[in-house]
């Protein structure tokens, strides 16, 4: 696993994709930080929360090549023909991408240092936002890894993870839309449904959909409200995608044999 991790991690610095991801992250975080600094109020929790919106671009860049690149080079076969444990391969690649996001985050740590030196505040909300940042990163990286494993093309892998992450980020909007559509449709007189019950039903539909939304679950961390349940959820979903990635690779191993 360590060998895989080292190899994958070093690959980010031997190709342009790692540096491009660094550049995008540095520019976006820098832009938000400088804007806040110029206004005289710096809330790092707010910055980190905003940065999460850009996962939709950053995660595909970082994860699209994790397995697709091996397929392109033909080195993928080594995973199936050598005594390497596939779980180690999956976890090694996952950790390498996480480490890359960890290094990107140094930029934010520097900004936090500048904030403190400038008399600003780093409070529980900031810590909460950092915790959530890494848990969501884990979730999305695992998702990107899965996308990379299911297809031979880097572009398709990137588009796949982009769409799924976008869908997750829009969950609350989509749920509101679905609830509103239900309400509009069922409120027609022909159905003769009690408006209060209909409203309750639509509200429950919205809540049900939102229950799956990791962003909605973790939204209170930035205010300093920590909860184990959303973190457990993110960790479980990340684990689920890693497991599915493992299953995809296992299937390929049978095919090879």
């Amino acid at each position, binding site marked *: 696993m360590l060998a895989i991790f080292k190899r994958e991690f070093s690959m980010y610095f031997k190709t342009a994709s790692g*540096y491009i991801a660094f550049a995008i992250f540095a520019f976006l975080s820098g832009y938000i930080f400088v804007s806040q600094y110029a206004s005289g109020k710096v809330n790092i929790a707010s910055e980190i929360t905003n940065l999460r919106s850009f996962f939709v671009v950053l995660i595909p860049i970082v994860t699209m090549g994790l397995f697709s690149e091996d397929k392109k080079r033909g080195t993928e076969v080594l995973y199936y023909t050598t005594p390497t444990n596939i779980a180690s391969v999956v976890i090694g690649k996952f950790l390498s991408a996480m480490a890359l996001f960890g290094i990107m985050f140094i930029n934010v740590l520097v900004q936090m240092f*500048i904030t403190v030196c400038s008399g600003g505040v780093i409070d529980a909300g900031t810590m909460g936002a950092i915790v959530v940042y890494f848990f969501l990163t884990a979730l999305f990286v695992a998702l990107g890894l899965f996308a990379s494993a299911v297809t031979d093309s880097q572009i398709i892998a990137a588009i796949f993870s982009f769409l799924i992450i976008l869908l997750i980020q829009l969950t609350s909007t989509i749920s509101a839309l679905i609830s509103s559509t239900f309400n509009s449709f069922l409120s027609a007189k022909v159905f003769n449904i009690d408006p209060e019950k209909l409203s309750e039903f639509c509200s429950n539909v919205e809540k049900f959909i939102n229950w799956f939304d990791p962003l909605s679950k973790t939204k*209170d961390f930035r205010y300093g409200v920590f909860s184990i*349940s959303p973190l457990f959820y993110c960790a479980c979903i990340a684990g689920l995608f890693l497991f599915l990635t493992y299953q995809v690779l296992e299937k390929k191993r049978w095919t090879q044999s």
Partner: protein
Amino acid sequence: MSKTNKNKQVVESAVSKRANEDSSKKSATDTRFKSLKYYAIGLSLIVIVSVFVLNAIFDGLFSKSLTFDLSGTAQNTISSVTQNYLDSLPAETEIRIVGLMDKPESLAGTPYEYIVPLLDDYAFKSNGKVTVEYINPKTYPTIIAQLDPDSSSQISDGMYVIKCGDRITTLIPSSCFTYDQNVMAQYGYYLPTSNVVESSFTNAIVAVTTDMSNKAYFITGLQEDPHTSFSNILSSLFIESVDLPVSDSFAIPEDCDLLILSGPNVDIPTNVADALISFLSNGGKLIVSTDFYYNSAEHFNNLNRVLNSMNLNIDYSLISENDPSYSLVDGGFEFLGTVTSDYASLVSSPTLRVSYARPVRQIDSTLPNIVVTPLIYSTQNASLSTVVDEQLTSGSVTGQFNIAMKAVNGSAGTVYVFGTNNFTSDVYISTYGFNDANVELTREVVRGMLNVNSSIIVDSKTFADYSINDNLSTGSGVSVLATVFLIVIPFGFVVTAAVVYKKRKNL
């Protein structure tokens, strides 16, 4: 020929045998492959379902107990006061909080940043007693009629409606915060200083779920200041607030436990004065507050007739504090008044903010059986100003002046008179919040008048201040940061990416 045919048959037979063997082998592999495939799909499905079921169970069992509000002032968590009140309500209580809007999604930088998460916490911790919904009347026009079939409340878009059974009350999001009045006066915009969201919603919940022990009437129709905040204070003491407009047929209802004249800017009519005198002589309780700001031309002769019946008078003057350690602004019209020893133990500060105060005094011709006591007074260095020919003229009278006094007559009729609105007005309370010492005094005055023992008092919550040192957020400082974070670092990575790409593109 026959030998050749025989050989051919042998070869064909061997080939056929081999083909059969291959076929049976392939069939075995296919079967194994299929079963592995089904096993993998089945296992994946089981794991997916298990993950969600496990999370649903974990969420249901532990989400409440494993949630910790580590924020400085617990902005998004209901306090133990609210929690205890919700717990004390019967299990079948159904409180509906309906936001008449689409559910706000982008909360950052809006009032909803503090309202939406806190309301979620109400719903979460109330064991089903509180439900929070967002219904936009533009999308569902019938919702207002559903909530308030009798049109007893003035409900409109953007409000929160709090309903329990037939009782209903409303809150405007902007009223859930206190604002810096200096910024408002100087720059013309609202700068929130603290969050009274929980206080406002809890008081509203109390108002719709509790049979109020007392009833207070606000005399209205005198161009008076709004009294929403004062009503909230009364609600926290389980006192119902009702408006009582002045009219030709003005009469004080029999169920009136407390009458309040908060910040009138015109004098009361004669018939109202007569009713008040009668009310006090029969043991009624009255709170009067006024000041010398928007009503500087008003002498309050009728009001003074009422107060004179209790040996009190509000003078037509403006107190100016000349002691620099008590004065808060140039001119001394805003200053710190000292609380008398009788009341000092009831408030958290020995001095209270007073602004544009009229002096309150005991009149010379004292009536029998009336006990008058001061509550708040200025220093000996205060002076009085009056308006002469529409000009404020500083008088030569200096000395100590009373800003608030209490009088009790033989029939237990009680009147508290405040020469400033800093104890009752929305402007003051919304600026300094419900934890302010002035509000503490108001609360204690009401509590003492009506012998109220129970109360639901939720403190204001101050905001986290993310301001940085002004000297550092200058143009040059920002330019340096912009250069480093927006140009040097990102372009450094882009250049490195280009170099790496160029070097490795042929590998």
